[in-house]
């Protein structure tokens, strides 16, 4: 069954005033509960597209719809409430001088009651495991902690769609692992997630669908395995094949796995596949 379409961009174009187009004729629809990896090289237009989807930037031409409703100037705050962005650099997002004040900024802007704000801040801090740090100023936190604060910022606003701009770029492997768990939890809660990343291995493991940007427009959009197996798309998008796919190719080539075996997304799935092949 197809879930309802939440967010829809139709023929978006945007330029930063310098003349050259940062986005060109971008159309994208996002369904509820999807896990979308947004791929593409630096400057391909991913971040600009995100800022348009959240209503911070207003597209030159084209429309954005949320739940079918066309977003006009008056509905921008509704869009911003429903679509949250976790920015790439937490230091560019954190403005308050304590962690709990920082997380309260979004809910306070939604003009919720004091009690409700308090409750949401606590919930967000708990889910990002930040209760211990709640009275700390952000400048005494480590990079991973700051990232968690910037995610809690958005969780507290309870948006339907959460966009992560390159969340794995500045994290160590342990923090990436924690992030993956957080993402899984969000999916369970029914949130819709869009993540831009250069890490194709992460995208392959985590996402269901991949959208590839190049030169300010979308050059491919589809199931992640289809996108990442196409050499043409990979070349156009300046991407590399995930290591696990290379392994798959090698295993098939050496006839260790039969052709047409299902793709595996992590080593666990690979082990299951091999076990079935050689023990069953």
């Amino acid at each position, binding site marked *: 069954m197809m879930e309802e379409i939440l967010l829809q961009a139709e023929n978006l174009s945007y330029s930063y005033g310098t003349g050259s187009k940062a986005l060109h004729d971008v159309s994208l629809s996002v369904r509820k509960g999807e896990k979308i990896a947004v791929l593409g090289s630096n400057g391909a237009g991913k971040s600009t597209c995100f*800022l348009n989807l*959240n*209503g*911070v*930037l207003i597209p030159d031409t084209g429309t954005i719809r949320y739940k079918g409703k066309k977003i006009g100037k008056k509905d921008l*705050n509704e869009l*911003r*409430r429903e679509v*949250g*962005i976790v*920015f790439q*650099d937490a*230091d*560019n*997002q*954190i*403005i*308050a*001088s*304590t962690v*709990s*004040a*920082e997380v*309260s*900024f*979004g*809910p*306070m*802007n*939604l003009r919720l009651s*004091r009690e409700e*704000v*308090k409750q949401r*801040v606590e919930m967000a801090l708990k889910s990002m495991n930040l209760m211990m740090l709640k*009275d*700390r*100023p*952000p*400048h*005494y*936190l*480590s990079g991973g902690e700051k990232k968690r604060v910037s995610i809690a*910022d*958005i969780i507290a*606003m309870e948006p339907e769609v959460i966009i992560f701009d390159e969340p794995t770029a500045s994290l160590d492997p342990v923090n990436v692992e924690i992030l993956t768990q957080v993402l899984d939890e969000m999916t369970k809660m029914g949130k819709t997630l869009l993540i831009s990343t250069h890490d194709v291995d992460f995208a392959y493991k985590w996402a269901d669908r991949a959208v590839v940007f190049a030169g300010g427009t979308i050059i491919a959009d589809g199931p992640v395995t289809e996108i990442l197996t196409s050499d043409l798309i990979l070349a156009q998008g300046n991407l590399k094949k995930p290591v696990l796919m290379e392994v798959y190719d090698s295993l098939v080539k050496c006839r260790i796995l039969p052709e047409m075996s299902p793709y595996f997304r992590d080593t666990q799935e690979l082990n299951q596949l091999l076990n079935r092949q050689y023990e069953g």
Partner: protein
Amino acid sequence: MRTINTIDSYAYESRIKGINPGLKAIVAMAALLFCIGTGDVLVSVSVFLSMGIITIFMGGLSVWKYLALLKIPVTFLILGTAAIVVGISHVPAGRFYITMPGFYLYLSDGGAALAARLILKAMAAVSAMYMLVLSTPASEIINLLGKLHVPKLISELMNLIYRFIFVMMDVQIHMKQAAESRLGYHNFLTSCRSFGGIGANLFMVSLKKAGVYYDAMTARCYEGELLFLEEERPVKTKEAAAAAGYLAFLLLLWLL
């Protein structure tokens, strides 16, 4: 993680951070006004000692860190009061004098006493302010100003400036390290050039950051008013009584 040893970081570690900031501010301000208003030596000494005791024993700041902080104003005071203590005269005068070609530098009785009183008064006032800032994070002091009806524009700016000091400091430290690693500071001339370059870059970075920050704030529904949830720290009866007792004690000391 880099820990910066600043007054700011001591405030976050203070054990009396939980006390209502308004109460702490009232005590500090009242003690300060008392010292300056009365000019009484006994009041000054007792404020200086009691504020030190509060900061060190109740707040839990190490004695050495406290003394190191006191060293800063002491330096200024010694330089400043030197002019009061030392007089210039054409004839030999005072208790002790040095002959210079054409005039005499002398120490007067009155001058020394005046300087001592002045130093005590100033140190007492400083220790009262230290008590406040070493136990109250900047954000709470800014909130307090907001409650005292300081214009919103100013308190919001203070909040942002406070945050940006640390963001900029971080950027500056990294740029300086990068310059140092390329021998940017190996002699006076290159140091000047590197310093200038970093300054100019910081300005550009600030402009860029301001834009990115604004986007990030807009993304979270910012509409022109900085709103944060403030921690409530109710005044406990015991604390209020202790504060009132302390001020009454100072008053008595002066009256007697």
